[in-house]
């Protein structure tokens, strides 16, 4: 990458800006715009434990590109009752670090806190790992998003919004 990197984290500002945009679109229930951030090859994964293997273990969410499209389409109907009206949400992304990079992707890990207001306030927290394709023509695209909730082992309230 020719763009300057922030010395403290090693994460390209373009990547950080992409993460923040993704967070804002999810917070604001801008489903279709959020979907457009994704690559054609996609995995949106919310495991039930840190050491889970999705081929063997059940996950809360394990969406490929096709299922991601369905998820967004369902939210867009306006009759996805668990998000009608959409929860009011704001999330903070922090402690972002570069975890890996190869020829065309970077993988970054962050901590997050998400405040969801629906009938009351629910606080979600965890670690989120983004794998982002850096396409010089199309710009950054999300290939993988993995969310390790700190309370993944506990009964979770309904989670129909975009985590």
């Amino acid at each position, binding site marked *: 990458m020719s763009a300057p990197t922030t010395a403290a984290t090693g994460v390209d500002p373009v990547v950080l800006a992409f993460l923040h945009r993704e967070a804002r679109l999810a917070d604001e229930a801008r489903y279709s715009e959020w979907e457009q951030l994704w690559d054609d090859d996609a995995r949106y994964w*919310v495991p*039930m*434990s840190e050491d*889970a293997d*999705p*081929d*063997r*273990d*059940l*996950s*809360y*969410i*394990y969406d490929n590109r096709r*299922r991601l499209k*369905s*998820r967004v*389409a*369902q939210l*867009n*109907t*306006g*009759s*996805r*009752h*668990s998000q009608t009206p959409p929860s009011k949400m704001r999330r903070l992304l922090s402690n972002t670090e570069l975890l890996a990079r190869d020829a065309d992707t970077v993988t970054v890990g962050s901590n997050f806190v998400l405040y969801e207001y629906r*009938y009351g306030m629910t606080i979600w927290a965890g670690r989120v790992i983004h794998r982002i394709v850096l396409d010089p023509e199309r710009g950054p695209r999300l290939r993988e998003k993995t969310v390790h909730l700190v309370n993944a*082992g*506990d*009964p*979770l*309230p*309904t*989670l*129909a919004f975009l*985590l």
Partner: protein
Amino acid sequence: MTELQTRPAPRTGVRDLVRPDRVHGSVYTDPEVFELELQRIYAEGWVFVAHDSEVPEPGDYVTRRIGRDPVIVTRSRNGEVHVLANRCAHRGNRLCNAERGNSTTFRCPYHGWTFKNDGALVGIPMRNGYSEEILAKRSELGLSPLPRVERYRGFVFASLAGEGISLREHLGAATGAIDRLLALSPSGTLDLRAGWMKHKHFSNWKMVIENNVDGYHALFTHQSVYEAVREAKVSHVPSKVEVYVRDLGNGHSEIDYLPEYSRLDEEFVWFGRAPRTKLPHYVAAMEEAYGAEATHRAFVVGPPHTMIFPNLFLAEMNIMYVEPIGPGETVAYTTPALIPGMSEMNSRMLRRTEGAMGPAGFLIADDGEIGARNQLGLASRSPEWILLARGLHTDERDETGTVNHDKSSETPQRGLWHHWASVLNGQDETAGA
């Protein structure tokens, strides 16, 4: 005042809360009713607690709750399954704090008392501090085994009461639903080790189980799925399909797709209409085990959609159980009914369970939301009664129970409530329904 003193005194019955075509709204909200349920249903009755496959090897254990009581389900060295109170017999510490694992003993970190996984007390540190009289009674100081533990084809049920009807009497016609599920497994067994999704519902536990066998709500509650994602496997418009609802007796009930699937005579309608060519290993194993004809029949008939009172739901190729937390809070646990060794089926099943079930599922997230709003609505005291009259005039009795050929009939709910009232009123369980 202590918590014990402020807890409401249990009711002794619910004689005025259930009528043939309606139930009183307070059955979902009244803390006294909830306390009575924990006693009569969850302490005195049979409750699903675990599946054999979750503790396959000696030393394996899982921890569960029956009502409020924490228990450990273990497999001891002789292969026997034990359900033990998860409470140190000395001073009451919750002994085992992992969800699952393998251990031949459990040692309490408080004073070091140690118990074998069959419950026997095997170690008391500094034992000479006890009199000979106490030490002579060591064998009585083990972990309390649940008074009754019985199994039906791998499903382990337990009761906190020493006396009562047998599991077979309790299950009655519901054994047919378990058989129907196991007819889809070449080995006649399941593997429930993919992990349980845990979903917190802000509604009464009975609302969750009633909804599981409600053939009326899908068109509305799940409209977004059929509109945006895919057509329902068969129509949810009752007049267009031969899908029945049934009260099986003893509080068990189901939505039965069998007549419709038989009419279509098409395989795997219940499994995304997957063609046989995608499942060659499974098809071969089934034909080897049961022969071509029975295999075709099993593939057409498909799995059950049956609620086994009070807490086990055979949700087609998923298993769900519910845990009552409070009058307005319930946890639902869901896992796919994996078929041992059948990876073609199992990898699909994992993804199907994630798609439909749990807190982010395309279906159940909306059931959770509707349940929460139901609980909020019930805060209103008017009207007093909840109407469950749909299809009452067209219910038919036959050898399978009380059947209605309109899937949107509230026949399952009426059966559930009839039984519920008889249990809470302390009547003979088998006399119900």
